[in-house]
């Protein structure tokens, strides 16, 4: 989920779609290492719904959404329950950073709902790590 340069509506939405692709892939790996994986599966569903909403928005605005890659490089190695939780927290923080960068460029009609999604990412990050940050970005 590396940050692409965001400078207009199209690049902002493309970056969010790419973030969703990356998060869905990463949560698959995370879920495989968690002893209690329900929350990771819920997170996959959450990102799938968001990806579909954003892909639909791309179609409405005449943009081509970026495709998912076959695999993504994960920012940390995920080998057990603890490292999986740490990776999940980092992933959600990273999502906050992507949504924060995109917010200003999004169409008014979707900006507030995307802001709510950012809040859900921040809460998820806290739930995974139990740590509150002054600036919710990785």
């Amino acid at each position, binding site marked *: 989920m590396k940050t692409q340069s965001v400078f207009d509506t199209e690049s902002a939405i493309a970056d969010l779609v790419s973030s969703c692709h990356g998060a869905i892939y990463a949560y698959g790996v995370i879920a495989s290492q968690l002893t209690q994986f329900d929350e990771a599966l819920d997170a996959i569903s959450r990102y799938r719904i968001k990806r579909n909403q954003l892909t639909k928005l791309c179609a409405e605005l005449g943009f081509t959404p970026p495709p998912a890659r076959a695999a993504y490089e994960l920012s940390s190695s995920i080998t057990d329950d603890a490292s999986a939780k740490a990776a999940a927290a980092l992933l959600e923080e990273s999502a906050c950073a992507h949504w924060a960068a995109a*917010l*200003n460029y999004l169409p008014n009609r979707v900006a507030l709902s995307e*802001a709510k999604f950012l809040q859900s990412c921040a809460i998820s990050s806290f739930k995974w790590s139990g740590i509150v940050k002054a600036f919710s*970005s990785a």
Partner: protein
Amino acid sequence: MNNTYVTNLQKSLPRRSFLALLSCTGFLVASCGKVTPEPEVSAQEVGLQAIISEKTRFILAANAFAAANPIYAPALQIVTEHNALHIAALAKFASGAAPEASASAIPEVGLTLGKLSAQCAAFSNSHLEFACSEISAELSRTLALIAGSEIMHHAFLNSILI
């Protein structure tokens, strides 16, 4: 003007100095007469100052509450320190001086941890709304990150309550 006075003054001052003094005085009087337009304060600036003010008041209220309820002090210290960092980050975007809030060690009557937690959630919602308005991209990004932190504070304080 008294002519005698002018004549006497001319005697004590060299003519050129006297004329220079008169012209300077005239210039100053003319300058003071001009109406200087009030600098226009943008909506972004107004919004920023309001956020800084409300965060400053929040810190004071939380500190007073923590002093009266030491069991919550460690948790509230994290939240207030973060809010101070938020103010510092936002002050970089503000052109005017940051407003000062009067310090008070007296806890607000009826203030509870639940109310402080609810205030964090309200901050997050309103700051995200401001981030979505017509402001600079960098301020929007900073505000959105702050709003993410504020909703974490809400979840954090709620986790202590339950």
